[in-house]
């Protein structure tokens, strides 16, 4: 399965989030969802009209001087702050980190919002469904970025899409081949820390500090592990 050609710094949460955000529309559009750009287009319209007012103000100020145009300038300042306020409100209260809105053939509307916290490499995904009848449901996913980014900072598309398909039923139904079965957990008796590898220790530390279950982290490790395995197979 595809691995992104783009390489990011795995230590930059913003890079991790933006690259993951960009991968969501690609995946959902490929599943037959029709993307709606209404939120983005409104934001761009608000922003660019504010900018246009500023440009006009700059022009008449430059051309006719301050004293001849000060009432127009006052009006422009008021209008600009109004538009900018509306833009801020739009981003903060309406968009709320939404990266994707789409509708599929059955009329199911899906809205995906993501967010990260500072210095925590955990991807918080908030998926909202609105069915044809208007019934809404919402579910939250919280996964570490290590599940779909490798050490070098390439995004691995397969585990990323599997994450969505296995956790979101509507996506799973559209793309059943990518649903991972939930493995039965075998209760292990922990002998002690001596048996753990360094990676496992790091994983449990991360799990402790971020509130993500250890299974998610180990799941990520097997995914990257299999990639490594493939490479080794090729060499042999």
């Amino acid at each position, binding site marked *: 399965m595809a691995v992104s050609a783009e390489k990011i710094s795995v230590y930059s949460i913003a890079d991790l989030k933006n690259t993951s955000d960009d991968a969501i529309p690609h995946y959902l559009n490929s599943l037959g969802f029709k993307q709606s750009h209404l939120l983005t287009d409104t934001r*761009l319209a608000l922003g*660019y009209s504010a*900018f246009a007012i500023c440009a006009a*103000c700059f022009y008449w*100020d430059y051309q006719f001087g301050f004293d001849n145009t*000060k009432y127009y300038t006052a009006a422009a*300042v008021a209008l600009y702050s109004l538009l900018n306020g509306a833009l801020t409100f739009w981003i903060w209260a309406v968009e709320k980190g939404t990266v994707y809105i789409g509708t599929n053939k059955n009329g199911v509307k899906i809205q995906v919002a993501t967010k990260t916290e500072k210095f925590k490499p955990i991807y918080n995904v908030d998926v909202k469904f609105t069915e044809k009848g208007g019934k809404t449901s919402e579910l939250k996913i919280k996964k570490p970025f290590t599940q779909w980014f490798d050490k070098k900072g390439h995004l691995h598309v397969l585990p990323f899409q599997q994450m969505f398909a296995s956790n979101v039923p509507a996506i799973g139904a559209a793309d059943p081949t990518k649903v991972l079965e939930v493995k039965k957990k075998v209760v292990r008796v922990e002998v002690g820390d001596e048996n753990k590898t360094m990676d496992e220790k790091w994983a449990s530390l991360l799990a402790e500090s971020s509130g993500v279950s250890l299974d998610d982290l180990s799941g990520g490790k097997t995914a990257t592990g299999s990639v490594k395995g493939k490479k080794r197979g090729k060499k042999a």
Partner: protein
Amino acid sequence: MLSALQNPRQAAAQLLNFGLILSTAFMMWKGLSVIADSPSPIVVVLSGSMEPAFQRGDLLFLWNRNFFEETKVGEIVVYNVKGKDIPIVHRLVRKFGTGDEAKILTKGDNNLADDTELYARGQDYLERKDIIGSVVGYIPFVGYVTIMLSEHPWLKTVMLGIMGLVVVLQRE
């Protein structure tokens, strides 16, 4: 992050971020202009002619409205001379008449003579409309950056270039 530019909406959004930073700065400046009724509500002292009150590089805040009282003798004012672009910060030392018709004479504290030499040819005094504001507050020295920039113009190009590049390339 250059690959992000392949998506036109994302490119437009990133360009908008840059545009909004510039336009917000400009509109804040214009808002201040409108409130203070002055074409340039903040100026930087360029000469030492008002020492020891102001040094080169001090940042001055101007107010150009006469709500309660007229501009008085003793106030430090900033004025523009016809045909010259550089605003001058000097003290008002003589005033004859009131309102818009008042004849005003200014002088730098550190200068020996008054400003009649500095005025345009044939101009012996200032009028109220020549004044762009009275000094109401100042911050020492912080304006020195702009003196550096105007004395070494290539610094401006370099700074603008770096700022633009940073904003376009980062999405944070």
